[in-house]
């Protein structure tokens, strides 16, 4: 049978075979790897994010490090220095720094990798129950093999992609939370196949599972989270499988006692890991630029060395044969050969221009910046005791250049807590969002669980006095019109809702006295201010994103028929009766709520006469059985029922933003950062949050759907820009504010061609923001990729869940929030923050500083090394191109490492051009980093020209002066050395704007070090011990005693830095003149325009954040959570059992049976069709 299935399904790509309880089949096919070779079919369930093993560490780390152009270059230099004929410098001059660099870097990589191993091991060691011949035994995640049957308990994380076989709940339903997959926190249900449910729960499940020998044929592992194709072949029958039967790795089992599942994809085959993308090493723009610079420097070194070699050849050919002394040294070598040797000699000699210590110092500066981020107390969150954390230590400067921020919504911008804040009943607004008043005293309500952020005593009084019938109806509607299920825990009802909005509303009703107690298939039990009432549920017209409303038709205990309806304001308002009261005041309330960015729902009621109901239900049953146009018929029927409504009121729910989100986003927008929101959530939710968190102004126009498509598809760019403007003119505000709202699939379609992608990005750059809704983790990454590809800006992705991992990895910088949703995002992020609002400080303060510090640092570093090394070129003109070093070899070794490195490190650590407060107050200053104003080719070119100038001065001024004296080579060398040290130190002093004690100390220390070590290296003791290595003995003493040397050094130093001083002075003079202007006129205007509040163009049009509800399950009666309705009118405390799952199950089972008996049930038809 299974064989037949195989042959039939092979053609459709269903080739992945999983045999249940059959380890001996899967184990031999396990995937193994050695070095880079892989074979085998089934991955094990081990997570391996580490890179090195004991064996591969050394070769891999060396391979990685020598991929860096600079390291490789220096390796060559070291090799060359070992060849005596070209060794212009002793071998240790380059060898020691290179070894240090390699060791430090290797140690750092090793530590990071060990950290990864530890976190992997933590995941791999999580416990889970695997079925073996001895029954279920506890094992670890890593032991899970394809084909294993697993038992998962409530609130456990699913360890692999499982086929749901059965659960302890009726119909083998189970609920999972997919927050780690798609960021949605509402529960989703999964249901086992009928056949497995029926067969495996017919007796003791665990015994029945042992002989289970089904074979699953399905797709090869892929990363598509929402699709799955497969077949289960069992007992000679073939059953089709769809995504609803699959429990994905990383989801959490909720509200379900136990489920049993068959592992289909494990480890790296699982869908979430397939979605994670691979580990990418991120390089910053500055670093890439630096690498280019290094290559450029190396190329120019080669060119210069070549020219000097040619010079050498000519010298050897024309001049030196005549000089007996030199030709004797040369021996038989030809001029060309001498030139060839000199070429290499000069490469060695000029190599300090490309500083080896640059990389190591660069890394050190990065590490310190990362530490400073972690130390920042203003980025420390007390509630979970989390400081900010920089996990990647090489991206700091990019924090100062971020152009696009791509943010997740749920858990990142919002707290994912919905709070009932205000309501409008009969035209009167209750509750106040602006002031923080004390909480209501709800002690009279014994069902109160707290958690109500509502404080209007008037409403409570009115409700308890029963003076206002509308308010009572309003709360009755809230308590009845929903698809929430209740669960009893500690004597209090706990609600499980498909959407957090509903939960918030039902909870609010509960707190205020209208307690939804339980539901069965056709009844709802509500305690109204302590009196329990049973409502007979006649029909449930479920929510859909098209209808944007839901209704329940109930028969009250008094026998009246009432339709309670809640939905989006536009939808409800157009269905009101003409004489419905409070319309105007309600609309005003809606506007007030909209301005406060609250999510609103209108609640209305309609009395339905017995006759209407009979007629309607009759038509409905006809429609339900109709074969053609059933959908439209049903829709019409619904329309027919949901009309002539009476407005009861409006609820206003706050989608709690994380602390400081609007301020942060508005700051970032002022800083020129484009903020995009990528969410798996619905469009409405995203748009509302967009307004709430100041992503868009109240008068921002939304570009979406067809309009967006037209804009993008208009034939030429001109037209499209023109049209864009035109369309924006319709807006009352002329500033042209617009935001793009686009769905995931729509987006994927829009940006299919590269050209369209480019257009999309360029259009988005004119908009305030882009909201991408309903995007999968993979699409999130694609959007990031899109931005990376078509704009030159640095992208930063921020998120908190596993669904953001892909995007976090793809973006230039990934930030993980250590929120509630597991640690996946943080694990993969480059920076971990506790709060979204810390982003402001991270970017505007740390990022900005880092960028400026690192740019200053790099510029200065290149300056100091090249000006010092280029002197050799000029000297070669005077020494017959013989590659004679200008300096003592010790000086060359110590110059970059000892004499000049400390001050520049201090510059890299401490420099602040603006205080943290000013950086936050004027975010506009951030945009200099986005434009890369401090390290671009032009800046670098000027730096190089300046260093060439300096090198010319450093050489020719001393030579010019000393040529009239009996100067010897060593004195000249000491003079040039001193001039070089002083010049670069003065340049450093000019560069430093923020003089801490460390800056003072290091500047002084490096001068002291220079003189001290010069004296030591030129001391008699060292010379007598090693005459050949310390040949400069005595040179410095003589030079320091010579006044002409000092005069020359002073002159040279001043002349060398004169251009720098002049430019800075001119800058001071010019900006001083302009500063006045900026302060007097521009700023107030800018601030004014910023704080001016636009006229809100937006009507509250916001409904629920809900997809298809549980309506189908409810009315099917298969919902596992319905509880026993209390029997008598007055609820006695002891009638409510603390926890009654058994009874609940029994009840539910009864419901099922009764439901099955009533075949052709009308409601069945309604809900089924509606939810499809």
């Amino acid at each position, binding site marked *: 049978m299974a064989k037949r299935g195989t042959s039939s399904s092979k053609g459709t790509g269903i080739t992945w075979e999983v045999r249940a309880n059959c380890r001996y089949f899967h184990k031999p096919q396990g995937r193994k790897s050695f070095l880079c070779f892989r074979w085998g079919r089934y991955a094990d369930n081990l997570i391996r994010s580490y890179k090195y093993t004991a064996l591969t560490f050394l070769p891999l780390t060396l391979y990685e490090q020598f991929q860096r152009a600079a390291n490789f270059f220096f390796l060559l230099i070291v090799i060359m220095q070992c060849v005596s004929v070209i060794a212009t410098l002793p071998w240790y001059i380059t060898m020691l720094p290179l070894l240090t660099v390699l060791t430090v870097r290797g140690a750092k990589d090793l530590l990071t990798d060990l950290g990864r191993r530890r976190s992997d091991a933590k995941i791999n060691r999580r416990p889970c129950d695997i079925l073996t011949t001895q029954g279920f035994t506890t094992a670890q995640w890593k032991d899970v093999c394809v084909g294993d049957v697993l038992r998962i308990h409530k609130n456990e994380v699913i360890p692999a992609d499982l086929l749901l076989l059965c659960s302890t709940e009726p119909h083998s339903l189970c609920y999972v939370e997919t927050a780690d997959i798609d960021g949605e926190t509402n529960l989703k249900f999964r249901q086992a196949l009928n056949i497995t449910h029926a067969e495996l729960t017919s007796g003791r499940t665990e015994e029945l599972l042992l002989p289970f020998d089904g074979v699953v044929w399905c797709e090869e592992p892929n990363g598509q989270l929402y699709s799955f194709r497969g077949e289960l072949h069992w007992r000679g029958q073939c059953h089709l499988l769809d995504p609803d039967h699959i429990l994905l790795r990383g989801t959490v089992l909720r509200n379900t006692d136990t489920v049993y599942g068959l592992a289909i994809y494990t480890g790296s085959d699982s869908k979430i890991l397939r979605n994670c993308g691979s580990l990418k090493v991120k390089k910053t723009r500055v670093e890439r630029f630096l690498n280019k610079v290094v290559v450029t420097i190396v190329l120019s070194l080669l060119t210069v060395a070549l020219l000097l070699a040619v010079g050498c050849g000519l010298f050897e050919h024309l001049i030196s044969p005549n000089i007996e*002394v030199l030709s004797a040294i040369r021996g038989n070598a030809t001029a060309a050969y001498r030139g060839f040797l000199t070429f290499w000699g000069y490469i060695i000699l000029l190599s300090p221009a490309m500083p080896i210590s640059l990389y190591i110092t660069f890394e050190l500066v990065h590490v310190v910046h990362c530490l400073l981020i972690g130390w920042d107390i203003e980025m420390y969150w007390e509630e979970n005791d989390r400081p900010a954390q920089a996990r990647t230590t090489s991206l700091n400067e990019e924090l100062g250049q971020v152009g696009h921020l791509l943010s997740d919504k749920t858990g990142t911008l919002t707290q994912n807590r919905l709070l009932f804040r205000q309501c409008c009943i009969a035209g009167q607004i209750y509750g106040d969002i602006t002031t923080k008043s004390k909480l209501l005293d709800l002690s009279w309500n014994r069902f109160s669980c707290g958690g109500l952020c509502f404080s209007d005593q008037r409403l409570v009084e009115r409700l308890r006095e029963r003076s206002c019938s509308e308010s009572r109806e309003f709360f009755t509607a809230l308590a009845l019109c929903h698809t929430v299920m209740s669960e009893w825990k500690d004597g209090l009802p706990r609600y499980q809702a498909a959407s957090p909005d509903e939960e918030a509303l039902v909870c609010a009703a509960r707190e205020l006295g209208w307690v939804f107690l339980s539901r069965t298939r056709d009844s709802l039990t509500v305690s109204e201010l302590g009196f329990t009432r049973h409502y007979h549920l006649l029909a449930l017209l479920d929510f859909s994103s098209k209808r944007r409303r839901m209704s329940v038709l109930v028969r009250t205990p008094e026998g009246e028929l009432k339709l309670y309806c809640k939905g989006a304001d536009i939808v409800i308002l157009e269905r009101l009766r003409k004489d419905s009261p409070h319309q105007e005041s309600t609309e005003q309330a809606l506007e007030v709520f909209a301005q406060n960015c609250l999510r609103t729902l209108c609640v209305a009621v309609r009395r339905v006469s017995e006759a209407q109901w009979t007629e309607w239900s009759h038509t409905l049953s006809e429609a339900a059985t109709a074969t053609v146009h059933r959908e439209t018929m049903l829709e019409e029927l619904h329309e027919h029922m949901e009309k002539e409504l009476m407005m009861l009121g409006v609820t206003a729910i706050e989608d709690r933003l994380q602390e400081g989100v609007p301020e942060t986003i508005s700051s970032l927008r002022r800083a020129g950062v484009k903020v995009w929101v990528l969410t798996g959530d619905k469009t409405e939710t995203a748009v509302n949050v967009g307004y709430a968190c100041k992503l868009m102004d109240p008068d921002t126009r939304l570009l979406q759907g067809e309009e967006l498509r037209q804009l993008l598809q208009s034939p030429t760019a001109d037209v499209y820009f023109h049209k864009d403007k035109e369309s924006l003119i319709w807006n009352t505000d002329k500033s042209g504010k617009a935001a793009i709202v686009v769905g995931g699939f729509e987006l994927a379609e829009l940006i299919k061609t590269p050209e369209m992608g480019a257009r999309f990005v360029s259009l988005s750059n004119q908009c305030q923001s882009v909201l991408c809704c309903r995007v999968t983790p993979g699409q999130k990454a694609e959007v990031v990729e899109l931005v990376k590809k078509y704009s030159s800006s640095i992208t930063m992705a921020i998120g908190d869940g596993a669904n953001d991992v892909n995007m976090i990895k793809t973006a230039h910088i990934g930030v993980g929030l250590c929120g509630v949703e597991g640690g996946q995002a943080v694990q993969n992020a480059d920076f971990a923050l506790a709060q979204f609002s810390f982003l402001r400080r991270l970017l505007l303060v740390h990022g900005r*500083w880092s960028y400026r510090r690192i740019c200053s640092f790099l510029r200065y570093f290149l300056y100091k090394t090249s000006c010092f090394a280029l002197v050799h070129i000029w000297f070669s003109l005077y020494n017959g191109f013989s590659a004679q070093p200008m300096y003592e070899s010790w000086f060359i070794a110590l110059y970059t490492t000892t004499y000049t490195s400390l001050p520049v490190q201090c510059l890299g650590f401490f420099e602040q051009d603006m205080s943290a407060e000013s950086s936050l107050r004027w975010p506009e200053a951030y945009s200099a980093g986005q434009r890369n104003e401090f390290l671009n080719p032009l800046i670098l070119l000027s730096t190089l020209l300046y260093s060439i100038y300096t090198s010319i001065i450093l050489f020719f001024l001393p030579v010019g002066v000393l040529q*009239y004296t009996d100067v010897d080579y060593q004195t000249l060398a000491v003079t040039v050395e001193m001039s070089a040290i002083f010049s670069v130190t003065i340049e450093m002093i000019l560069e430093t704007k923020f003089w801490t004690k460390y800056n003072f100390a290091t500047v002084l220390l490096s001068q002291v070090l220079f003189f001290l070590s010069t004296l030591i290296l030129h001391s008699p003791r060292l010379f007598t011990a090693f005459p050949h290595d310390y040949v400069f003995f005595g040179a410095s003493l003589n030079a320091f005693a010579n006044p002409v040397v000092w005069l020359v050094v002073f*002159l040279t130093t001043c002349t060398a830095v004169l251009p720098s001083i002049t430019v800075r002075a001119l800058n001071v003079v010019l900006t001083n003149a302009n500063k006045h202007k900026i302060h007097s006129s521009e700023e107030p205007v800018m601030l004014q325009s910023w704080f001016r509040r636009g006229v809100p163009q937006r009507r509250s049009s916001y409904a629920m954040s809900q997809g298809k509800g549980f309506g189908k399950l409810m009315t099917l009666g298969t919902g596992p959570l319905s509880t026993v309705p209390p029997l008598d009118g007055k609820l006695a405390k002891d009638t409510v059992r603390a926890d009654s799952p058994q009874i609940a199950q029994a009840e539910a089972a009864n419901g099922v049976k009764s439901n099955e008996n009533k075949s052709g049930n009308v409601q069945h038809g309604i809900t089924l069709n509606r939810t499809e």
Partner: protein
Amino acid sequence: MKSEGEFVNQPDNTAFTQQRLPAWQPMLSAGIVIPLFTLIGLAFIGIGVALFITSQNIKVQELDYTGTATSSPCFQCSGLSIQNCTCERNFSLSELFEGPVFFYYGLSNYYQNYRQYGVSKDDYQLSGDTTYFLKPQSYCSPYQYSNNKPIVPCGSIANSMFNDTFRLYLLVNGSRKQVPFDGKGIAWWTDYNIKYRNPSPVNGSFAAAFDGTTKPVNWQKSAYELDPTDQANNGFLNQDFLVWMRRAALPNFRKLYGRITGGDYSQGLPAGNYTLQISYNYPVLSFGGTKKVVFSNVSWMGGKNQFLGIAYLVIGSLCVVMAIVMLIVYAKYKFPDNDDA
């Protein structure tokens, strides 16, 4: 509410970790910059003037004796084959040449700073280590061995030692009166006292220490008999040898030969006619080099050096010019703005 212990990860609130270190932030303004430039410029001009005047007071007398021109007295000596040639150059001083007078010899187009030339010596040998007498280091090549005998002192530098000698005569009433050169103490103190050491005498004989070695190829005398007049001025401690071994920085250089300080000449060289007798040994014509001698007196800043003073003056003037430019720029930008306000 919560005890302190719960915040284990709380960062320290110190000035260092919070980047609030007290710091001096120099705020430059035009009011500081322009006067500063003026001051620096004036200071430079001041130094420049002082240096220039000092330098003007220094007298220098240069005499080229290469003998390229047929009319020049040393022409007959400049041929390669001529040995032990002596020539004379006459010059006259119209006024007193104040002492102390330094006497230099100068060479041009001579690459003492050539890299392979510079390393061609054995520092161990020169510090008196006799083990290296018999086995000179390979740096000395091609002047390591001669006729299978190790060369002491080995290497190119020593081999190419300058060997012209000079005598200066003052013509007094038709007769020549020798002006003595003081050749003592012309080398660096460190070179003479520490860096270079003679081998200890063997059996009381200084020459015996050099047994088994040979003199450099171009030398006429062995190292231990460089100065027959003064036993102490021999070997590696010969002053002229030390001066030569200290390599010149540039291809055109001068080296100190001696000072004129003694006896009647402590005040300097009196006005009169002088004859410089040169024993012409060192060949330079082959590579287009020149030889010269220089008489110069010195001030606190050494010999005549106009370049230094001029350079200071130029830089100083530049600063002043910049200050003026900045003032103009500042005035142009600032004052209209004030009018608006």
